[in-house]
């Protein structure tokens, strides 16, 4: 009985470690994070890919120079009341067909001077073969 339990447990553990080994960290080929004052990044989703028909338009609105840089993903933090907010990429992990992206919302330092305009912090990224993956952003 004990032997059976050990065998099953070791199989389970082996299975888990096999899975962890499959999670691969992805480094984007291009990454730029900043914020914009325009409401055009107001969106229900927190990211936009090239599959979105307005992708190029929005990318150009952020910065027309971005068009030729191969970005294929815009990650949006959402409306912030002032300047001083930013978005920072923590990591991207590929697990099977899902890209798990972890971003950090950075708030302005307390009592720091900020601009008094609403902002939309964003990051633009170029990730190889992005279309092959589903995206999960936290």
């Amino acid at each position: 009985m004990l032997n059976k339990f050990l065998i099953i447990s070791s199989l389970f553990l082996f299975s888990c470690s096999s899975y962890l080994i499959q999670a691969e960290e992805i480094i984007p080929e291009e990454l730029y994070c900043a914020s914009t004052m325009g409401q055009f990044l107001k969106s229900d989703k927190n990211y936009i890919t090239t599959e979105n028909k307005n992708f190029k338009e929005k990318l150009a609105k952020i910065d027309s120079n971005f068009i030729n840089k191969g970005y294929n993903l815009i990650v949006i933090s959402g409306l912030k009341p002032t300047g001083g907010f930013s978005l920072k990429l923590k990591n991207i992990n590929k697990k099977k067909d899902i890209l798990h992206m972890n971003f950090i919302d950075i708030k302005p330092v307390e009592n720091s001077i900020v601009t008094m305009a609403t902002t939309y912090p964003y990051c633009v990224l170029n990730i190889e073969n992005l279309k092959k993956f589903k995206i999960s952003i936290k």
Partner: protein
Amino acid sequence: MKICTRILAILSLPLILSACGGGGDEGSGGGSGGAASYTVPACSDTGTNFQTDEYYTIGSNSGGRSNQLSLVCASSAYARGATGDGIKIAIVDSGGPWDADGNVSNNEFNSTASDIVKPSNSDYVNSDSVPNDDNGHGSGVACMVRCDRGDTDVHGIAYNSILSFYKVSNASGTFINDSTMGSALNAADSNDIINNSWGTNTDCTSISTCTSAVGSTTYAAMKTATDTNGKILVWAAGNSGGANPFAQAKSVLYDTALQGLSVAVVAINATNANGSGAANGKIWSDSNRCGDAAAYCIAAPGADVTFVGKENGQTFYIGSGTSYAAPLVSGGLAIIKQEFSSLTNTQVVTRLFTTALDTGEYSQSSIYGHGLMNLNAATAAVGKLRVLGGGNLLDSPNTSYYDLVDNTFSSSAAFSRAINLALNGQTMEIYDSFDGANFKTNISSFFTSGSYTTENTVENHMARLQPKTKEKVKHKNLYGNFIMEVDGNYVQSSMFQSAGGFLALGFNQSTNSFENAVDPLSGFFNDSNFGNNYLVNPYFHAGSGQDYFMSFNSNSSFGFDTFTNVNGNDLGMAFNLNPFSSTSGDIKNAGDLQIVLGTNYEQNKFLNSSSTGAFATGDMSNTNFTGVKYKKNLENDFTFVGSGFAGYTYIDRASNSYIDKSTPLLTSTFTLGLAKANFIKKDQRIGFFINQPQRVEDGSLNLRVPTSSDRDRTVTYSNLNVDLEPDARQINFDIIFHKAVTETSNLSANLTHVKNGDHSNSSKNQNFISLFYKKTF
């Protein structure tokens, strides 16, 4: 204790508002130098020529309609020429429209390079002189003030102002430290208005806590800007939706050194944000409210407004923030400051607050402070417009003002044409009783022109030919003759002539013997001015309705005429050589010559041109004149009449009058006439007359009018020399025919041609042909 202070502050708020005049449509404000009552015009956006697609931000690539300019009625200011031209605004922010090499890289700021300034060492982030914008916020804020106008997309509120950029934050929006920020603000003091669309999201409740929240160096720089240098600080109120502005904007509440020159700005919605483009105008949900600082606070569009990004001017954003409301107010202040060069910066701010729209929604001072910026009212008169009474210090207790209506000049037709030409396009300043704001007005608006031709109507022309209908009452006794002409119960004229002709007294009737002698001869005319003025002394300005004449005729060689009118402001005397007309005698073909020397004094007028207020003339303008009158009966029933007058008029200057100096005015008049009785048939008469009405031949006057004023409240006058000689000579040609058809009927015909009416070469010639037949049943 803190709670107690706040309660006191809230309770005192209405008093503060009242004292500052920021309450109602009518009220009393603190304007110096005169009456303080005022009425605030509505926010009417009436400058239709300026309401372009750019104005409504619906030009190419702009993204949709915002009402950021129309909500504050900017077009009305533009229509008055107020665009912020030449006023310097500092944009203390993330930089301006340059690339890293210092080349203008944003098309929205490239129309007038000299208006977009990068001061030396103005990049406080990188310690260089190229304050390029890595973030975009500075460009957006600057666009609200001065995006170029005329490139079909969007333009700023004060599109002719001068922007200087001071870069104090980097690409990520991180600002420089307190010490460097203080330096940047000190440098920005070289501008008139300093826009600050940034702040610390903290409250403060006293000078010490505000200083702590703002930073001691920055706070000191703020005070230097206002208290030492008299510059205007404009602050975004903050975006936390709080009841009060954040610390930088709220400091003004506690520190008198900031008061009067610091403005906190809350943001309202420019649109309904539903895509319709309709105006909303209510407080933006995330905007801080004016709260305790209401007396120093105003509202402007800041949510759903359109502005340009940091890039090449082709990218426009719709965004929100008190960041955008503040530059609209900075631009509004620039517009007021440009429009009124006489206002100090403190008065500019007071006018901004006083004229804000504060009715309805905007009457909630805890939210909107003074209300919504209203550039229509801010650039209009809110008090009475007044004319300066000759001094040059707007606020001096010794300075006097006239109400507009009390300044008039009614010019004689002898020079009205000349004065019209001279005053065409000439302006002078008048001043708002509220604050001494200087307005331009056409000098000609105070002038009315006399005219010889306006009475040349068909009706009057016909009336000339009508036989006199007034009843003449004649009485003769031992002492002389008395003739009275009455119209109903109204005595129109009367004359008494003593026996022997020594004394003649006339009421509305000349007593000059020559004029009365030729009157029957010329009797073609009825008693209209047009006819009688052919032969009378033009320097006796009859026609007041109660004119008094008196003549002394010592003998047949000389005599005196005197004249005065009902007001007693005319006193004329003339010495006549050979005053008697021999036509009253039996000597046929005898010539009759009268030579006149005389003078006429006019009180507060000259050449019958009256004036009041700032254009008043003195008590004793006088004209010395001479004239020749000649009549000769020729053979074959011809009679020649002629008269000519010339005079020199000396204008008496009134103290502080805008009519400053003058040269003597030489004037002339002449009439020539030839009449024939028994023309072709008996009882037919014909007459031909040529006449030049009184005209200035030489002379000028100097108008000294206020034309500019400075922020030190002094007024500068300019001289305008007005040559009073008209550009043409009016000549009247008259042919008159008269026939007595029967004893009870007669026929009159008249052809009149008037060339260069009112001595103007641009007047159309006038021609009248009339026939008049009268039969008495």
